[in-house]
């Protein structure tokens, strides 16, 4: 037993020494810098928040009680065309949070990036109970996992809406848009939005997501419920709006 422990420790020292070796080699090349996402969820020109009354494109009143969405599979594209995937990074965006860690990337010039709204199929069907509680994919993130098909809700939008014909009532009808399932993940492409990761400084991607644009062709009075599987056309309509709902913020 003793001998074994010794061997183990020796190997561990050996192994970590060789890792340090790797880092040394890179000193001549670019540095590695932290990168984060600065994200604002908006309703038109207003910040999205729960309990505030907004107006949709037609002037109809609605509010939000839950608004969360998964962003994943970020890929940064270097000037050379080389792609830097941020594998394993999954964010659960919500109105209250603006800063999300993306990981570390080599410094240099990038010509753009892309990411998914939603999750890749493998991640989408993993067991949500295996993640630690603070992971966005954990079962402790309430109400964002469909247990009957073992998949995540990619974007959850819930609240109350005025359903009167002339839009002259108050938001008292419960609506919900639960958009998910493998088919509805969408790649958001900003492959021509150049940015710089400077040596010795943290980098940031700044994005805005406008809910009004995501619902631009949705008639909230009549189209007010989808669990995706039971109202695929409505879920698809919202997913197809995601690209246009995102915009890169000027630095």
């Amino acid at each position, binding site marked *: 037993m003793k001998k074994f422990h010794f061997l183990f420790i020796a190997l561990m020292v050996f192994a970590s020494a060789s890792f340090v070796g790797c880092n040394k080699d890179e000193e001549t090349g670019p540095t590695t810098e932290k990168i984060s996402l600065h994200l604002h969820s908006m309703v038109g020109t207003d910040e999205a928040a729960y309990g505030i009354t907004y107006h949709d494109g037609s002037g109809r009143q609605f509010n939000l009680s839950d608004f969360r969405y998964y962003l994943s599979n970020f890929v940064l594209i270097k000037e050379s065309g080389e792609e830097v995937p941020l594998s394993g990074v999954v964010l659960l965006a919500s109105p209250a949070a603006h800063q999300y860690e993306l990981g570390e990337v080599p410094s240099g010039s990038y010509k753009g990036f892309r990411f998914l709204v939603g999750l890749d199929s493998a991640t989408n069907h993993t067991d949500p109970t295996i993640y630690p509680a603070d992971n966005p994919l954990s079962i402790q993130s309430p109400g964002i996992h469909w*247990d009957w098909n073992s998949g995540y809700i990619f974007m959850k939008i819930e609240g109350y809406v005025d359903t009167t014909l002339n839009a002259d009532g108050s938001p008292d009808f419960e609506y919900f848009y639960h958009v998910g399932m493998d088919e509805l993940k969408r790649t958001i492409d900003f492959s021509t939005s150049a940015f710089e990761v400077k040596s010795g400084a943290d980098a940031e991607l700044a994005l805005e997501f406008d809910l009004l644009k995501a619902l631009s062709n949705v008639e909230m009075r009549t189209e007010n419920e989808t669990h995706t599987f039971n109202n695929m056309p409505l879920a698809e309509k919202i997913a197809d709006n995601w690209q246009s709902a995102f915009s890169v913020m000027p630095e």
Partner: protein
Amino acid sequence: MVKRFLFVAVLGTVLIQQWACKKEDADPGDAVMELSIPVGFPYPNIPSDNLPTQNRIDLGKMLFFDPILSRDSTVACGSCHLPEHKMTDVLALSTGIDSQKTIRNAMTILNVAYQPYLFWDGGVPTLEQQVLAPISNPHEMDYDVNLVVERLKKHAVYPDMFQKAYDQEPTVYSFTRAIACYERTLFTGKSRYDRFLYDKDSSALTPSELNGKSIFFGERGECFHCHGEYNFTDYSFRNNGLYEIYTDSGRARITLDPHDNGKFKVPSLRNVALTPPYMHDGSIATLEAVVEHYNSGGKANPNKSGLIKPLGLTESEKKDLVNFLKALTDE
């Protein structure tokens, strides 16, 4: 690379060694067991993080029959999967919390260790993940698994049982594992048909049942294509022509593919005589009526399997086929 491999190998060996040392003074309930499975059955695949031990099985069994998992503590897994009815409830649709009806018929969970995916539509990939579904389903238990954990932590005996079984306090991870571990011990496979097949006891089946067997496994009935092998299912999704228009889209609910409309996972036929009514919605009451359905060739449906066509069975052949199905009941 080689270094890293060596490192991982050594780490692995050390971990195994430590685990082995720990086992020496551990209680026997913590030892990994071999499941005793019916003759002629393969050994099921079991996830490496949930190998069976007596402590885990005991814990899972207690949870399975405990209404603590439901919002108002009235509904247990065992309320709809009853041992006295071969782990079904012999109802067309099950009764959940607040006397609500489920949308589908509860199938047996005997031999569930072999199911490659769960539910009539195959929407859930593992037995561990399946546990989440009835708990959050508003028609069944209508509760939150995180609140279940809070209850379990406060319970008089569960925390200790979890410590023994999974070396941790109650968590969603450990309680879903425990229930799945128990479910994987539920086998069925000792019918007169098995006696005939494996014990070579030719007197185990009557002449009528033998004739039914030929119809079932031959071109007269074509049943074996879907209901084949040791569990009388190939686990495929098929449309057997129950309806022209299905109100339940079945497999298409998961794949969203219209070609999967009305396709359901082929059910096992073991103990089928004891688990009426039949089909995903419990719409057929008796085995005689099931055979009548197949004999008619079913309803017209674009997704209906080509194997479902009028069979032209005589009255006595229909009886023989029913008698054979009844010989699949465990002795």
